[in-house]
């Protein structure tokens, strides 16, 4: 047989196999997480190889324990969820507030130092965050900002603004300048133009950006660990889970419930806005 025909058949089969393997490999850990969180610990220790148990054996006591406040014998993840939500929402809102005018400036206005700004952002994006961790640790200790959610929020803003500006700029540069000129003829000032013409048009990009920043802030671990570790009341969900999983006091199935609680908001957001996000993240990458 012809090489082309043989190969086409082989790759046709291979493609299905690869797709199946991909789905299993990526979803398995999440399924495992969910199943463990629903089983009592004794049962898991008895038959650790069992992946699926019927709904009759499920329990929600793990979730009850993980969410109950620490004062009442639980792990207090509700408190951690609130902390994570406060920091992530604040970081998202403030990052957008700072980066929208910034992205507009970079994409539309000619000003001194515009080229250097690109280089600065690239450097910030690619610099090791552990290097930043040392001086910020020292500085925040001195200022008394360590152990405050506000301090953490500031760090998140600085870490996400460059990427945010980069993503928004790519989108803004696809909006025709003639629209702005028309708005200017109608007597709009520049700020009015941004608010009434540019922002509505850029809404999908802004939304994708907001989700992206929210995810980064929600998932972040290193700075939360450095700044908030001393007082349990300040912990974010990521930090709480990491701190408790090292010990042996809390059963693993309860912590699995904690993992589900940590992961669920991100998965829901992601599936709700998947197309928006993937297009926002790779905008410009398809141009070579």
């Amino acid at each position: 047989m012809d090489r082309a025909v043989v190969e086409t058949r082989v790759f046709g089969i291979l493609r299905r196999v690869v797709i199946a393997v991909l789905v299993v490999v990526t979803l398995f850990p999440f399924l495992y997480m969910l199943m463990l969180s629903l089983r009592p610990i004794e049962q898991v220790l008895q038959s650790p190889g069992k992946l699926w148990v019927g709904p009759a054996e499920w329990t929600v006591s793990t979730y009850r324990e993980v969410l109950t406040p620490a004062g009442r014998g639980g792990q207090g993840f509700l408190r951690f969820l609130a902390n994570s939500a406060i920091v992530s929402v604040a970081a998202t809102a403030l990052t957008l507030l700072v980066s929208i005018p910034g992205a507009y400036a970079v994409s539309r206005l000619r000003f001194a130092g515009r080229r250097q700004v690109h280089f600065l952002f690239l450097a910030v994006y690619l610099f090791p965050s552990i290097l930043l961790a040392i001086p910020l640790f020292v500085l925040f200790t001195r200022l008394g900002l360590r152990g405050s959610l506000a301090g953490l929020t500031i760090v998140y803003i600085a870490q996400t603004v460059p990427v945010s500006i980069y993503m928004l700029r790519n989108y803004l540069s696809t909006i025709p300048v003639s629209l702005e000129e028309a708005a200017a003829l109608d007597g709009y000032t520049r700020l009015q133009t941004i608010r009434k013409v540019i922002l509505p048009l850029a809404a999908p990009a802004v939304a994708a950006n907001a989700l992206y920043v929210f995810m980064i802030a929600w998932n972040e671990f290193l700075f939360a660990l450095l700044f908030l570790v001393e007082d349990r009341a300040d912990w974010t969900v990521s930090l709480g889970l990491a701190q408790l999983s090292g010990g042996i006091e809390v059963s693993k199935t309860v912590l699995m419930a904690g993992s589900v609680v940590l992961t669920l908001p991100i998965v829901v957001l992601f599936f709700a806005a998947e197309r928006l996000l993937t297009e926002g993240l790779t905008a410009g990458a398809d141009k070579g």
Partner: protein
Amino acid sequence: MAARRPLTRRQQENRAGLIYLSPTLVVVLVVVVLPILWTVMLAFQRIRLINLRRAGFFGEYTLANLELVLTSPGFWSSLWTTLAYTIGATFFSILFGLVAALALRRGFRGRNLVRASVLLPYVAPVVAVTFVWEIMLSPQFGIANNWGTRFLGWDRPIAFLSQREYEVSLFGWHFDVPLALLTVIAFEAWRYFPFAFLFLLARLQAVPRDLEEAALVDGAAPTQSFRHILLPQLGPVIALLTVLRFIMTFNKFDDVYLLTGGGAGTEVVSVRVFQFLTARFDIGAASAQALVLAAGLIVLLAVYLRFMAPRVEAGEEN
């Protein structure tokens, strides 16, 4: 007194640009640039958290930290570990990303769902996924070891994350593999192949269909059309991904710290920095160690800007 002349359009634009960008610049300057410069200063002073108040601009500068870091036991091995970890994770994440992008290129029923689920490892919180991996691979109650001993005939559970060397015998040869390091690399490839997948898929879908169709008419086999049509188109993206992933992995802290805590032969430089900082409160040594990491990175960035940046810029213009 002369009346102020109205600004020209050009001056106005310049001023507006700077004003709009100023909040960004202030944040980046205060929280990123100045702290980095301060790290450089700290690296050349003997400072611990206790005597921090003494530390100032005119402190006593010394090379003691660098000397301590460069001669301390485990420095070179951690550098090699970082390099092996980075190269392995970069290579496999891009390879798997490419395979996934090729498989999911053409439409089929449920493709969007599959694409979304493939991205999950990348978007899920790192603490949650490292924890699940830890449990999955646990020698006591992990599913991997349970199935391995039951179905694959392993004679005893394998401690994937806490065993430095594992003896493998193949065709009568016995040799040791760095087990924990390989596990961490596998985790990294699993978590970051979606990143490469996204970029490669976007690029693949922009390749004009008629090129491949013409090749098909000419009787080209899939491997030939991949080699001569797709690969040249993907080249720049793969090169960009290689550099991006390399830099990101080189700096990575969370994944290794959460999986192994830097034990069992997985101590990468960033985890060492963290140990200096939090276990010994030796700010000077931590800074010096971080500088070594950054120096390696700057070399890489220089290579990037020298060889890659012009092409990327050119691509953006059209």
